[in-house]
């Protein structure tokens, strides 16, 4: 059956050429080809194109991609660390060291005796890093409670020996309370107050140090990022220039070869 609607119909032509599609449609087109020389020539020429296309083969290449199972699954626990950028790892390490040093009261001194490292909070006040660093610039703010503490110590030592000591022997700090001997409750309250003040100060110091560490890390990170960005910009510029040169060369070769 020769259906004139098949003439020049790409749908039917492609189905017939590739033998893909409804069988009755292909049979109908085959019948049409017997009567239509134009369509028969079209099919023949497209078949010839398909034969020529077989000459285009990709070059041989070595493909050896394989999915490899992780050899050390035990290390996966810390695997996320390797995904962190170097600056973040450094920052985390610095933070940990800083906090540990702060908590342990680390004191590093370098003098005539060489390098000396001490830890702990029970050292004499003058040898503690916090004291050494903070007393000088903030003498005005620390002196009162340190003087009070010293006076308190003196008072505690003196009291058992001189229960009825004269008012003039009482240290300056207690004289300000009216010159009378303090009761046990008052002593206790005073000691608590001093301990609280000490704790508050320690916390403040710790927070200050942490803030400094974080600020330093942030500054370093910004500087590194800027350096990396600059480096990438330079690389990009160089690569672009090389690529442009290669393109020019390829175009030239292409033109020469086509002559």
């Amino acid at each position, binding site marked *: 059956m020769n259906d004139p609607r098949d003439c020049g119909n790409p749908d039917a*032509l*492609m189905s017939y050429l590739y033998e893909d599609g409804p069988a009755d449609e292909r049979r109908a087109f085959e019948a049409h080809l017997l009567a239509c020389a134009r369509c028969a020539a079209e099919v*023949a*020429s497209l078949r*010839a*194109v*398909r034969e020529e296309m077989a000459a*285009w083969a990709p070059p041989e290449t070595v493909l050896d991609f394989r999915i490899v199972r992780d050899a050390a699954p035990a290390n996966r626990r810390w695997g996320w660390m390797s995904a962190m950028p170097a600056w973040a790892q450094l920052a985390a390490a610095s933070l940990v060291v800083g906090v540990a040093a702060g908590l342990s009261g680390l004191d590093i001194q370098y003098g005539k005796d060489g390098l000396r490292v001490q830890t702990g909070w029970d050292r004499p006040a003058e040898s503690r890093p916090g004291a050494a660093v903070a007393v000088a610039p903030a003498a005005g703010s620390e002196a009162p409670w340190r003087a009070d503490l010293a006076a308190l110590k003196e008072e505690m030592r003196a009291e058992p020996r001189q229960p009825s000591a004269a008012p003039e022997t009482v240290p300056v700090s207690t004289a300000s309370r009216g010159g009378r001997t303090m009761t046990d409750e008052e002593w206790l309250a005073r000691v608590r107050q001093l301990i609280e003040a000490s704790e508050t100060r320690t916390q403040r110091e710790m927070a200050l140090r942490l803030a400094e560490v974080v600020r330093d890390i942030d500054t370093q990170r910004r500087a590194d990022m800027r350096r990396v960005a600059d480096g990438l910009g330079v690389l990009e510029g160089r690569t672009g220039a090389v690529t442009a040169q290669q393109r020019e060369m390829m175009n030239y070769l292409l033109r020469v070869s086509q002559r």
Partner: protein
Amino acid sequence: MRGGQAGPPERQETHGERVDMTVTDEELVARSIAGDTDSFNQLILRWERPIYALAYRQLGREEDARDVVQDAFLRAFRALPGFKGEAKFSSWLYRITLNLCRDVMRRARRAPFVPTPEGVDIADLAPAESAPAESIDDVVARKDLGRHVARAMSRLPEEQRSAIILKEYHGLTFQEIAELQGCPLSTVKTRLYQGLTVLRRELEGRGTGPSRAESRTP
């Protein structure tokens, strides 16, 4: 399938590694999803050549094609848990590959690279790639024709080129191509017809095509 591209069912060995063809793709996919990496490697062995051929014909550059193959399998492996099996594994892989090729072309903002038609290197032609009966002259002519086809293909719009490659070299059905390209079946046929017509003109224009004047009605 054409152009010397043997598809997975015919291929038994790749680089000394035997491909087990008794297991279907679906079974290997199921095992891979269950965590069997070796099964996925079997899938790679089966499909790496066709995927490479597809990427090469789309991009025209061997290095880019190899990168795309690696990327395609890596993406497939990562996305495997989400693969529901609604389409064939190979169709899914073709889709990933075509998307990657599109990304590469978009990134490079270039037409597919056409290998420079430099002088034919006889040393390149000698290997066992050619059939024993094929003479050097035949090999040279075939290589030359291959370059012309590549150049003509590079001038086609991307949709036409993809349709022709998938049909001609990978043997996909019209329906499969329509699903991959996300268009009606009739559009695929039109793209094929238009693409083949342009190719015919290009090849004739270069004097490489067989004369068809005698077979045409005036």
